[in-house]
């Protein structure tokens, strides 16, 4: 916020806040618009229409650096043609056959283009036709934002389509936790591409991540579908390493594309070497078969995991530094699921609703078989290691004190567990013990030295080797991922972090304060992946000759005399595009920013659907499809109830956070200072709604959804107002979700707002739609 205020003061920046409730940030905004939860694509679709209709896009950028001029095959059809779905939709399986989602190719296999952007089937014109029905009037009717305010915001945002103007966009779970979550973000990415705001100083689409290291934990892929560095986890169909490499190494026929993922074989082989050390050899596919292969037709995502647990399919469970009994949509389902486990291991600083679920509300411990372990771990200042912030900046943390009592650093607990499991397999034998016995794991006997792990993540040579004319010897640290090999001569735990701990030392611990570009990039403060590049896709910030679009604030520029780039670490050393260089979007096979997103499960363009639980009976834009037809819905069991259009639940509910608490509150409810500031769950509501219900500020009320209910203290406020949606009044209420029954001990905090939220998920990510659901409220 400090930097936003500075931009406002020094550069006259405008702050626009669009949020279902007036927030502390909104208090500082130039424009605030209250939006009905879950209607973002209507708002953003209207903006895309506005930008294209008024030709306010950044034409040179769009023509050269995006797929806007690419021609799509005539068989491709829009929801405009098919009443709300794209071509290829199968109503039975609720899935798309994507065979018509493709470009027309020329004789060299490269997409045909129309640089004049006039061809009716070029991506830009299809996009324009797709959003033609998203008029300001319609957007206003759907979102509840007055038309003049919509146009005022559109005008300001569209004004950044000029080379010397830029917009940055910040979002958090308010955009992701929807059944259209991925498409919300895509809509903004499309806008930023149209306006030429990607790769620029002060541009981009920024996720404001909620956990100190959720960037790092995602990079290291504690997720079912990816291995460290965003390498896909193998499926049963990837029968051997050769097939795996073939399936996941993209090839391109575009001669100007760098197609970075062509290096995938080096990254997966180096990862296998890091996992299995000397056991990983070319003749045994580097132990590829040791990696578990997932069922190609099955999802192992969070909601599926707890569904499987509820069905009794999961016997043992680790909840490591997490409190799913409060953080999961439809939390009652999770709490019941935990009771079906044989055993559970929880690792945390404090007891919590997950660890103690067996004595929670409605539970009878005498009937619950689950064997539960609580392992007390060290806090962040009681151990040493790195964490990565929202800006991909990995910073090192030092140890200040020993952990109290018998608490142990998490790495030590992992080490102990591994050693004991291994010893059991050594002693007793067992099923397929090799991946355990052959694991490359030497991090210390009892105490774990995390720098050894950091070095493994960076990567090292496992044999003497000459790369790019340089000689390296066995055991030497890899300078960065450019030196990784696919022949087994390098081991690397995460190619993205290669360069964070080279021979020179720990780059993440740096504290240099120079800012040579004057843009606030601070290249010697800590270390940023990849290769310490501070702004991704920075080749898009210059024209075809390497001249910055905005000469006042260059991220990089081509020095023609020295034949090199100056400024930030460029996306590749190649010269500018017109001088024989490469296209800017180096991770994409075609080298350009993707507007036509054929990789998405639910359509190449964002399309407006109502939330699964909505106050409307129909989708005002596509009456045939009320909500995302691909939304992941669990409805087999009574516990998965939904209020799709149910008069018993007429009020729109949403959840959010407060500054004084964090996540489920385990790390803040135990702090007396913070608990005093925000002592218990509340529900914010408009004056009009409160009056209708006879509720006063401070009253205890009961909030109910089909899945659960909880008490909350009413806050009657101006911050939320009734909305006019399609001529009718819609009331919205909001609750924070930081509370739980287990602490404060006397129950004075209330319980988790996730008792109310539905376990329905986005078709691409399965992130639950916790930001919109239907409720009712009564006085307690």
């Amino acid at each position: 916020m400090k930097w936003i205020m500075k931009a406002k003061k020094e550069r006259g920046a405008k702050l626009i806040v669009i949020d279902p409730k007036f927030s502390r940030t909104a208090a500082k905004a130039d424009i605030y618009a209250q939006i009905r939860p879950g209607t973002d694509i209507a708002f953003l679709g209207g903006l895309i229409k506005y930008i294209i209709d008024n030709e306010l896009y950044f034409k040179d950028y769009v023509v050269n650096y995006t797929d806007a001029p690419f021609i799509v095959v005539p068989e491709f059809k829009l929801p405009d043609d098919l009443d709300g779905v794209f071509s290829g939709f199968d109503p039975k399986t609720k899935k798309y056959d994507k065979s018509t989602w493709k470009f027309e190719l020329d004789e060299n296999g490269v997409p045909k283009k129309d640089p004049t952007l006039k061809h009716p089937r070029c991506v830009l014109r299809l996009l324009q036709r797709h959003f033609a029905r998203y008029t300001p009037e319609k957007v206003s009717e759907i979102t509840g934002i007055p038309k003049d305010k919509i146009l005022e915001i559109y005008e300001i945002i569209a004004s950044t389509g000029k080379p010397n103007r830029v917009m940055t966009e910040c979002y958090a779970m308010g955009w992701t936790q929807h059944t259209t979550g991925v498409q919300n973000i895509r809509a903004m990415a499309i806008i930023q591409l149209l306006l030429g705001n990607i790769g620029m100083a002060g541009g981009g689409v920024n996720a404001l991540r909620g956990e100190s290291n959720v960037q790092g934990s995602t990079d290291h892929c504690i997720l079912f579908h990816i291995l460290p560095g965003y390498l896909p986890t193998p499926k049963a169909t990837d029968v051997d390493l050769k097939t795996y490499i073939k399936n996941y190494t993209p090839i391109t026929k575009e001669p100007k594309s760098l197609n970075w993922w062509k290096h995938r074989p080096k990254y997966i082989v180096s990862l296998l070497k890091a996992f299995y050390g000397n056991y990983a050899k070319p003749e045994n596919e580097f132990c590829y078969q040791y990696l578990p292969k997932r069922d190609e037709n099955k999802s192992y995502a969070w909601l599926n995991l707890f569904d499987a647990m509820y069905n009794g399919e999961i016997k043992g469970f680790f909840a490591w530094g997490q409190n799913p009994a409060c953080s999961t949509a439809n939390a009652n389902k999770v709490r019941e699921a935990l009771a079906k486990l044989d055993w559970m291991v929880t690792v945390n600083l404090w007891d919590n609703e997950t660890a103690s679920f067996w004595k929670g509300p409605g539970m009878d411990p005498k009937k619950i078989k689950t064997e539960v372990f609580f392992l007390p771990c060290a806090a962040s200042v009681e151990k040493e290691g790195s964490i990565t912030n929202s800006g991909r900046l990995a910073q090192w943390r030092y140890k200040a004190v020993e952990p109290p009592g018998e608490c142990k650093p998490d790495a030590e607990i992992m080490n102990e567990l591994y050693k004991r499991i291994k010893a059991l397999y050594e002693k007793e034998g067992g099923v397929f013990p090799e991946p355990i016995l052959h694991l490359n794991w030497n991090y210390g006997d009892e105490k774990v030295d995390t720098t050894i792990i950091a070095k493994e993540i960076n990567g090292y040579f496992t044999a003497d080797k000459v790369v790019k004319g340089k000689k390296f010897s066995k055991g030497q640290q890899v300078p960065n991922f450019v030196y990784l090999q696919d022949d087994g001569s390098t081991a690397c735990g995460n190619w993205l972090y290669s360069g964070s701990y080279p021979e020179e030392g720990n780059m993440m611990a740096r504290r240099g304060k120079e800012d040579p570009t004057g843009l606030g990039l601070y290249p010697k403060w800590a270390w940023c992946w990849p290769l310490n590049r501070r702004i991704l896709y920075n080749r898009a910030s210059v024209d075809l000759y390497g001249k910055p679009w905005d000469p006042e604030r260059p991220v990089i520029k081509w020095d023609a005399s020295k034949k090199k780039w100056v400024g930030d670490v460029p996306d590749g050393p190649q010269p500018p595009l017109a001088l024989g260089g490469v296209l800017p979007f180096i991770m994409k096979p075609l080298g350009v920013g993707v507007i036509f997103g054929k990789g998405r499960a639910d359509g190449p363009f964002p399309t407006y659907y109502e939330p699964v639980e909505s106050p409307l009976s129909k989708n005002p834009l596509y009456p045939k499809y009320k909500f995302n037809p691909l939304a992941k819905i669990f409805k087999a069991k009574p516990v998965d109830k939904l209020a799709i259009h149910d008069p018993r639940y007429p009020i729109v509910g949403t959840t959010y956070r407060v500054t004084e608490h964090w996540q489920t509150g385990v790390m803040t409810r135990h702090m007396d200072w913070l608990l005093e500031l925000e002592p218990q769950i509340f529900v914010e509501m408009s004056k009009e709604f409160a009056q209708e219900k006879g509720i006063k500020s401070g009253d205890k009320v009961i909030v109910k959804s089909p899945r659960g209910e909880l008490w909350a203290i009413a806050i009657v406020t101006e911050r939320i107002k009734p909305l006019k949606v399609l001529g009718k009044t819609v009331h919205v209420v909001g609750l924070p979700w930081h509370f739980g029954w287990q602490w404060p001990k006397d129950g004075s905090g209330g319980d988790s707002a996730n008792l109310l939220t539905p376990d329905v998920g986005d078709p691409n990510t399965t992130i639950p739609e916790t930001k919109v659901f239907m409720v009712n409220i009564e006085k307690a």
Partner: protein
Amino acid sequence: MINLEILIIYKIFKLAFCSEFFKFIKRDYKLAKYYKNTFKNGGEKMKLTRRDFLKLSISSLVLSSFSLDLSSVKAYAKELRIKNAKEITTVCPYCSVGCSIIVYAKGGKVVATEGDPDSPINEGSLCPKGSSLYQLVNNPYRVLKPLYRAPYSDTWKEVSWDWALDRIAKLVKETRDKYFIHKDEKGRVVNRIEAIAHVGSAALDNEECYILQKLMRALGIVYIEHQARI
């Protein structure tokens, strides 16, 4: 910053309109502690914070009382708390802005924490959560020994690390050996186990995240998830 301002305004009003304003330290020890911590946070940057306050239209009476109190707290903290203390830097364990914090330790205890003015990310400022790091480490509610809840029991029981870890290792092995899937119905080698699941954690260090997923994958677990999915 803005959040901190609002928080502080709230506290100022709470104090200013409380009849026993000048006795607040005795009467409300927790609150006083909060002040010490908050305003010490930022170190030299404190001046900036105070300047920001001046921009807010709050009665001068409140401000002057406030400033007086502030300087005494600062002096107190500097003299007694951090004198001869070991100083290390850390990064806030809460949200992902990545604010840097200086931690002072003496006699094996954290005696003070404050926003790190050298960090270009936060330049010494912290929000209420980061400002509370001191209380996170000096916290009476932490669990200090491994706990165990036996099947059908209604209480936790303290156990030794050795016992707990051995028992967990045994359960992991038993479950893995019983439910391991070497080949699927189509005869393809899959080497996975679906009967054990793991979640967490975005609160761990990178190095821990890396070896944690390495361990879980070596066991053959495929239900591996964490906060990023919710």
